[in-house]
């Protein structure tokens, strides 16, 4: 969905930065959102600074929808994994495009 929505909106980012955080994603707003998600979902101590970065780069209005989107996928990830819904083969093929190594789940 990221790839499709970025394409239709003509947004140029490097999706490999999602899985390989040493890579540059290519846009300041995307970098701020990734750092915010890392801190929020990873439950690290730098959430305050990550929150400020999102507000500085994108404006304070971006924070609630970003936090809400992370919250939604915290829900969906748990539902899908805990109920054992099988991952479609097509999803595994996306691993390398997201910067994942084969060991990390980047099959294909």
């Amino acid at each position, binding site marked *: 969905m990221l790839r499709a929505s970025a394409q239709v909106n003509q947004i140029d980012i490097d999706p490999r930065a999602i899985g390989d955080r040493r890579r540059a994603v290519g846009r300041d707003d995307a970098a701020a959102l990734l750092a915010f998600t890392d801190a929020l979902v990873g439950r690290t101590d730098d959430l305050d600074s990550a929150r400020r970065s999102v507000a500085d780069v994108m404006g304070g209005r971006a924070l609630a*929808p970003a*936090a809400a989107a992370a919250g939604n996928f915290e*829900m969906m990830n748990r539902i899908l994994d805990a109920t054992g819904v099988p991952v479609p083969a097509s999803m595994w093929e996306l691993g390398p495009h997201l910067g994942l190594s084969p060991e990390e789940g980047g099959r294909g």
Partner: protein
Amino acid sequence: MTGTELTVPPHTEAGVIRAVDNIGSVGTWWTAAERVAIAESARRAFTASTDGAHAVITEPVSAVAARVATEAHHVTVDDVGVFGEPAAFVEVVGVVARTTAIDTFCRGIGRPAPELVATDEHRPTGQVSRGAKRRSAYVATVGPAGPTTALSAVPGEDAAQADLHGALYLSYAEMADLRIVKGLPRWQLELVAARTSLINRCFF
């Protein structure tokens, strides 16, 4: 920046309030007090706290709630077997998943996690989907197992998931619109979604 300086979209604010109220209400298999205890077990799991006796739910149920909260990718079909009735497991998954969603959202905007309060003393409804069948997932679903059907064996949980999904992110109908802007442009929402899923080791 604190939560009070932020603008929370009204549909998100209202949806979170509904979700908190829902957790504190009677469910399909569990009473309101039991649902709150399940949610609190999930919360404690993130802090490795052992505070709070399992006076309302049993230790095995609390343990499964904690596992769903902190390592859902390690849940197996054996965890369903902890429960005599699979619908009881489905409800635990739903309650824990929504609690985690709400708490993540609140933490993200610098707001304390909301207090969960049991608001009624009715008996569980026992309403399950008669058409649900075990297919490719650990639990029965109505139709093929997927993101929008994973909890469909228990209509109350299925509906609560859909409601919070729309409040925090996009409604199922809105998912088809790749150009939608709902607080953020679609591609930014998807960026957060993709990173969240990778951190959780969920490759769906």
